[in-house]
């Protein structure tokens, strides 16, 4: 929207509210009827996602807690030609690295370690700065939030790889691959971080600009 350069008015100032689900902009009657629904699609209307900060924190902390067993416990049991061994997420990455498959080691490392850790740090940062109503680097923080939304679900990669190889390698006496409990914890971490970033309302990043609200 190139024309004017003045900062745009916010919905809160104009007394309107947009439906989260269908995008319709309606008059803000939420003070009179807090449970008002969207006149077009029926979704509940709210100015900010309800209990955004508390929910996002709770889900994020739960994800961090589950990330420990996800890394310590084995995710997969592999028996190739007689010898059996259990592997964790990191030992799987190292195995690829040592066998010279650097590309694939990097892909798994990014999806299983770098992405979840980035999400923890970014969501933590966004939550702390939103709570302090900080006006520091708002545009950059908004961009960080969009990045987290975009990369979040790629962490499911490891779960899907384990599912596929476990379905294929089933030569009982000879070779066998089975999932182990660690993959459950890892999947829970991915789901919890996704829910946490969905609970966080990115508009809170900008609310620090208006100190009276």
């Amino acid at each position: 929207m190139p024309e004017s350069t003045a900062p745009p008015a916010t919905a809160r100032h104009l007394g309107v509210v947009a439906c989260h689900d269908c995008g319709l902009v309606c008059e803000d009657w939420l003070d009179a009827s807090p449970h008002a629904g969207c006149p077009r699609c029926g979704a509940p209307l709210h100015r900010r996602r309800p209990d955004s900060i508390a929910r996002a924190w709770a889900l994020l902390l739960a994800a961090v807690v589950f990330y420990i067993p996800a890394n310590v416990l084995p995710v997969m049991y592999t028996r190739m030609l007689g010898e059996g061994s259990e592997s964790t997420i990191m030992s799987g990455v190292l195995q690829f690295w040592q066998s010279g498959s650097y590309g694939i080691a990097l892909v798994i490392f990014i999806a299983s370690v770098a992405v979840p850790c980035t999400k923890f740090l970014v969501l933590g940062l966004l939550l702390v700065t939103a709570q302090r109503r900080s006006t520091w680097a708002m545009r950059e923080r908004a961009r960080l939030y969009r990045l987290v939304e975009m990369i979040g679900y790629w962490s499911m990669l490891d779960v899907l790889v384990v599912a596929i190889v476990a379905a294929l390698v089933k030569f009982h006496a000879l070779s066998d691959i089975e999932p182990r409990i660690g993959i459950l914890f890892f999947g829970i971490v991915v789901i919890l971080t996704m829910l946490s970033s969905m609970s966080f309302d990115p508009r809170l990043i900008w609310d620090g600009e208006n100190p009276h609200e």
Partner: protein
Amino acid sequence: MKIFPGLTVCEHCDAVYERRPLAAGEVARCRRCGAVLYRASGLDVERWLALTVAAAIVFLIANVYPIIRISLQGLHNEATLWQSVAALVHGAAAPIAVPTALSIILIPFLQIALLLWVLLYARQGRRAPGFAQAMRMLVALRPWSMIEVCMLGILVAVIKLSSYMQVAPGPGIWATAALMVLLTLIANRDIHWLWDLTAPRQADA
């Protein structure tokens, strides 16, 4: 309650703008935070519906045919997407099979089915029965649809196993790749304009 169909609010920072028509390929971005407000739809309803039908067909193929075949010392095996989900059910990690089945099978299926339903009616400028619920579900399902992650998982699995045994692609792998492209085209787009397209004449009342 008054409504303002001519306005749009940035979902990411609450800034209000007047809506204006975009030329093909244009994207309206928020001046304050840089997020996408809305995009020009590159597809009309007819093409959108055609791609959705195509997605339904490749979805069927991707789920019926094996994605990978392996052979090791004269033994052969193959697996479909369903069997991959089922392989998680054994052992202590069994609950993870539920989100896996949802993200690579059930949610893509629901996205295709709901779009088919909505678009078949939208083609005649009408709202399908349950239109509002279908549209809300499409918005809610989008982040949980993980066919592209599944495709990368298949490739990683191929590379992982190829150092121990012979690995060959099955027909399902091509169908999954096609499904990934089609699902991105039909489901990862701005669907809000269907509301305006199918709006009854006196919607502003």
